[in-house]
């Protein structure tokens, strides 16, 4: 099982569809414990990334992931832009000129992505940030021996849901202290869409 360049393009396309469809929902989440721009940011960033990928031909996974990273980094903005950008950039670097992404390479890339996010954001698990979804996904891939569409989607959803009970200690939501409890973290919700999109790509191939 592996992801081709086209699979990655489809992944980003599907992620973009979800960001557009849930733009208002994500913004509402961010209005509750942030500043109300997360849906707008993600919709803008993924729109641009999908458009960029559609306009270009890519020789390998590294290249398509790099363009994704750079576009997200420059078009999302806010706290989440550099973090999502970093995630895809780390995946790009980890796939060093691999034409397609096999399981081991992707798993390694995801681990690097989580490290990159944590380092950049100075955050760790349990702080009610997108780290909570990304770290859980890296764990899942680490434990499994191949891609499983359903498990990916379920786990991403669980990880997102778990942020609800957390108290935010990083990012804008941390100003709300105890009052941040009871709300899903917006960045975790958008991350969940990214992994659900991935699950759909994988599911379509199985």
């Amino acid at each position, binding site marked *: 099982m592996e992801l081709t360049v086209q699979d990655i393009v489809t992944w980003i396309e599907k992620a973009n569809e979800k960001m557009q469809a849930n733009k208002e929902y994500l913004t509402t989440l961010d209005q509750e414990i942030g*500043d109300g721009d997360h849906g*707008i940011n993600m919709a803008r960033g993924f729109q641009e990334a999908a458009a960029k990928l559609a306009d270009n031909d890519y020789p390998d996974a590294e290249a398509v992931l790099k363009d994704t990273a750079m576009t997200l980094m420059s*078009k999302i903005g*806010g*706290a989440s*832009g550099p973090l999502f950008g970093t995630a895809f950039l780390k995946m790009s670097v980890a796939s060093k000129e691999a034409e397609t992404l096999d399981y081991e390479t992707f798993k390694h890339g995801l681990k690097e992505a989580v490290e990159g996010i944590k380092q950049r954001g100075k955050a760790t698990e349990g702080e009610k940030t997108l780290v909570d979804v990304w770290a859980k996904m890296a764990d899942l891939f680490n434990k499994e021996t191949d891609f499983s569409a359903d498990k990916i989607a379920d786990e991403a959803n669980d990880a997102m849901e778990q942020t609800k009970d957390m108290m935010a200690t990083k990012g804008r939501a941390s100003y709300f202290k105890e009052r941040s409890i009871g709300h899903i973290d917006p960045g975790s919700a958008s991350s969940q869409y990214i992994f659900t999109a991935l699950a759909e790509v994988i599911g379509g191939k199985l």
Partner: protein
Amino acid sequence: MKKIINDPNEVVHDMTEGMIAAHSDELKQISGTTVIAKVNAPISGKVGVISGGGSGHEPAHAGYVGNGMLDAAVAGEVFTSPAPDQVLEAIKAADGGAGVFLVIKNYTGDVLNFEMAAELAEAEGIKVEKVVVNDDVAVDDPSSRRGIAGTIFVHKVAGAKAEQGGSLEEVKAAADKAVNNMRSMGMAMTPCIVPAAGSPSFQLGENEMEIGIGIHGESGIERKEITAADDIAQELTDRVLNDFDFTGEAAVMINGLGSTPEMELYIVNKKVQSILAEKGITVYKTFVGEYLTSLEMTGCSVTLLKLDDELKTLLDARAQTPAFHS
């Protein structure tokens, strides 16, 4: 949503063009970016000073671009930090060879994006230093404190030091001193609407206000019934004074968040001044107006900056920008 705009997704673009059209003798836009720079930037041999952040805080930050303050300002979307590539453009626009100083407000987004831009600039051989403004005492933990209206004092101090020929290290030392000697506290009575979102980010009851709220409507300390201006002024000033010893001379800023009439800002100032007089704090200079806003939010903040001779000189130094003159 009662706004005078065209496409809600184009507000920053439209505003930037309108701003350049108004101030073409003083400002220029770095083409293809949201960076506004002094018309004659970069200035060879002078330390460049830049700032920026999400839009919606006008006149911050492009309104402070001009002689004696910022060399360039970079604007993100409304309430959204600009991306590293944009910040990098601002750094380049300000770089006259003596290095560039970054005034960053302490929000995760601003810090991350400016830091990444600084790394990129350093990779290109530009010397970069920074200060992270965290004047908002509404947040307990100093490392998490937000940057609010006091940021304008930091623009002024860093800008003046650079204008005087200060080195990158000297500019940083002056800016650090300003940040360390400054505290702010704000309150709001009504929310604001991010144009692309179309609805207010929070709600306050007809008789409610929130003390300690952030400039994007982030949570404050306490939501309570609206009281008299004197009580509000007392509460904001007390919070500021309880956090730092301002004995001596200080500069005061009463900042309006967008919809609060200047009349009310002056009413708040009256009380703030009398509190400071009682405490034996000598007010060297007072600034009342809309310096760092939050779209059409109703509310205000009180900032105190403790002064020594150097800071006084830097505050008094000539500055000529669309939004700040001295």
